[in-house]
């Protein structure tokens, strides 16, 4: 907090000269003799429109790092741990730069993230070249898990699992006969919506697909027209179910429009909408009452007990409903455990490539369930998809079932 202004001024004025000094930037390594310091990076949105989702994960990871450093989780560590922030704003454009900043940080051994699917797609070529293990708490696009034995792993199920479960939940559990599937035009939303639409058709529902633009969601240029018009069309089509693939901001706009149009059918969205941000983005907030959301995290999706209070203290956010905080916590712990199994003596260095191999070998019991990766980085178990219902009065989500 100190010297904020001076730093900024220095940054701006000296930036031109800095090209010359650049080789020294970011070299953080252990000093000889003492315990080495290793860095684990978190890559995801920490500012911008998706900051809500990204910060849950960041603080989830931070809880894990703090507990490991304090020795309460794995006993006394043979190294010190640091959590570095790589704020990609969830954007596939900024992501490659942040990935390369992470790669050139010498003490950095693994990444928790990247958080968003599009950003992951854009960063992975760089990470895989650097043999950097990346354990994502939330990148769910089905297509991300491609190669065998790659450095990409995730502690959540892919969209193919979640989308199919969501469609079944709507059509089979809630007997929705005609469904409108909307996506927000993002990498993530479009992929998920496509799976939902396909499975719902297979289940026998009548499906119509719409695309609402990314420019209409919170990060872009909020436009009343699109959502109001979409709501009018939904009303006129007399459908009994609406599914939205995307993030809470766009979903909030849609809910507002649907509520003022008087829509009463079943409404559902995904994990991108499972955030307290949904309630501050919906006008009026009561329009979010009773809508369903889903998450493919598995098991117990929230940090509980002591972990919850630690999380709350760091983030000033409730752990209940903090999407993917538990997944980030598990991913971080898994990385630390893999590091411990490599660093059996003080002379052994933890290397990125080794960690990739080690993480693939492990079976880890975390708070979200047992984690073991397949060769392509997907979870090997059949992942459970959880469903929850929003309560606008308490601004929370109540779990109502699972697949």
């Amino acid at each position, binding site marked *: *907090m*100190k*010297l*904020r*202004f*001076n*730093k*900024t001024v220095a*940054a*701006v004025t000296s*930036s*031109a000269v*800095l*090209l*010359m000094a*650049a*080789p020294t*930037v*970011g070299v953080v390594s252990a000093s000889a003799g003492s315990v080495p310091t290793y860095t684990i990076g978190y890559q995801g949105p*920490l*500012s*911008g429109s998706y*900051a*809500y989702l990204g910060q849950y994960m960041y603080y989830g990871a931070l809880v894990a790092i703090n507990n490991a450093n304090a020795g309460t989780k794995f006993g006394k560590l043979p190294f010190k741990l640091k959590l570095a922030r790589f*704020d990609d*704003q969830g*954007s*596939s*454009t*900024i992501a*490659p*730069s*942040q990935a*390369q*900043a992470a*790669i*050139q940080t010498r003490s950095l051994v693994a990444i928790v993230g990247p958080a968003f699917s*599009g950003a992951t*797609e*854009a960063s992975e*070529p*760089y990470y895989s*070249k650097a043999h950097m293990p990346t354990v994502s708490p939330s990148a769910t*696009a089905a*297509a991300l898990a491609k190669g065998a034995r790659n450095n990409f792993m995730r502690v959540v199920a892919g969209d193919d699992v979640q989308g199919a479960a969501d469609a079944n939940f709507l059509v089979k559990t809630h007997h929705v006969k005609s469904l409108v599937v909307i996506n927000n*035009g*993002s*990498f993530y*939303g*479009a*992929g998920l919506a496509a799976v939902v639409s396909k499975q719902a058709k297979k289940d026998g529902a009548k499906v119509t697909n719409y*695309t609402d*633009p*990314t*420019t209409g969601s919170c990060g872009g240029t909020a436009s009343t027209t699109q959502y109001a018009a979409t709501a009018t069309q939904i009303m006129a089509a007399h459908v009994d179910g609406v599914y939205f693939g995307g993030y809470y901001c766009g979903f909030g706009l849609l809910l507002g429009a649907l509520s003022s149009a008087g829509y009463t059918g079943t409404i559902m969205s995904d994990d991108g909408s499972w955030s307290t*941000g949904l309630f*501050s983005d919906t006008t009026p907030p009561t329009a979010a009452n009773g809508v369903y959301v889903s998450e493919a995290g598995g098991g117990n999706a929230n940090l509980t007990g002591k972990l919850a209070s630690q999380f709350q203290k760091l983030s*000033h*956010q409730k752990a209940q409903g903090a999407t993917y905080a538990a997944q980030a916590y598990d991913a971080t712990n898994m990385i630390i455990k893999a590091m411990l199994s490599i660093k059996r003596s003080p002379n052994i260095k933890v290397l990125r490539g080794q960690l990739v191999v080690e993480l693939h070998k492990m079976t880890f019991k975390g708070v979200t369930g047992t984690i073991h990766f397949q060769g392509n980085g997907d979870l090997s178990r059949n992942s459970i998809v959880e469903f929850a219902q929003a309560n606008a009065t308490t601004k929370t989500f109540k779990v109502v079932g699972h697949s």
Partner: protein
Amino acid sequence: MSRVTLALRSPTSRRLLTSLAAMAVVALMTGPSGSATQPMVGPTGSFGEHVSIFGLFPGPRWLLFFLFALVMWGIWTFWLRRGTSLRAAASTLATPPKRAFAHRPVRWVFYVALIGVGVVFPHLVTSQYWQSVMVEQIAVFVLLALGLNVVVGFAGLLDLGFVAFYAIGAYATAWVTGSLPTPAPFGVHLNPFFAIPVAIALVMVAGVLLGTPTLRLRGDYLAIVTLGFGEIITIFANNLYGITGGSYGSGGVTGKHGIPHFSINLGPIHYRWTLNPVPYYYLILVFVVIFIVAFSLLEHSRVGRAWTAIREDEVAAESVGINPLKYKVMAFAIGAASAGFAGVMTAAQSIFIFPATFTLQVSINILALVIFGGMGSIAGVAVGAMVIQTGSMYLLHSPPSGYQPADLYMYLGALLMVTMIFRPMGLIPSRRRRREIVLTEAGEGHMNEVLSGENP
């Protein structure tokens, strides 16, 4: 009461009030960021938070910025008294190097030395982050700025949709190399080298198609129409899943391979570019030099003089037989060419491309580079692009507290405004513009002409 108003109206107190207001804004800009849960943290923290004041003692931020305002006021007052003589002294100092630079051999030695520095540069900067930044964020943006400079600087047309040409170049590369859902031409997946002529041809056609109807419009209408064009290209790229891959971008999800790297297979010579940024750096460096030479030849050719004539007085230009529309369309197409080429580089270098990369913000970013560097000045634009892009990438890499990556556009917006108010000719004014200033000061130029920066 009236005495108070009078006192407030005196130039000195006015300058003090302006300094205070300016510093209050700077305090907000550099202060903590608000969030949805605490939307008032920004404004209150910006003034209330405790900081170290000049490293001497702790105090609230408002005190620090109050002191800054006093300093600013002092400098301002000093500048009003001594500014003219200081400026004269500076120009006397600058005269010998300027005169030396007028000799052709000296200039050539300087240019060769500059290229030499460019060649050894990646070996001085060994950080992988900065090496890749040099390619993706600096060299590519130098190309983009050079292109927009032809449109804005040479021809005086404000194009706010310049990113569209960049996008078309990138998507053309993905198409030619077979990474889009659209089948590649003739079903052959080519090396990105072949994408260069295709992309440049496509963007030039797009430039002519967009320019021919719209360049008849008034300047301000042109700005809005081009802005709309840029947005439409992005919307199409994001939604035509069957053609562009939609929001999935190229390759990846759609099951196609990523965009391949450049490669050369000429008889015994085989070379393949990889993710390593250094070879890309040299490839782009060659093209940057080519574009700079081409554009500066163009500037001093008949075409360049026609642009100047149109920019200064379209009616007069028309009366001496210059067809304004023809030359304006030409500027559009030629400027677009370098953006298209930048698109090829970005696509081949980054394997996947996403529509989210090509937003209006990028157009504004490029505009800021051109305006800051100096409209119409090739050297200025190139230096401006390097300075701003290096600064913004430094801030992304190691953000000072109170800075978020999204704040960049706040600074760029402020830069545009401040440049226009205080130094409209930019960092390094073009020689032609400088001459125009001299003419204006001598009372021979157009009173309204441009960007002289001084009161005529």
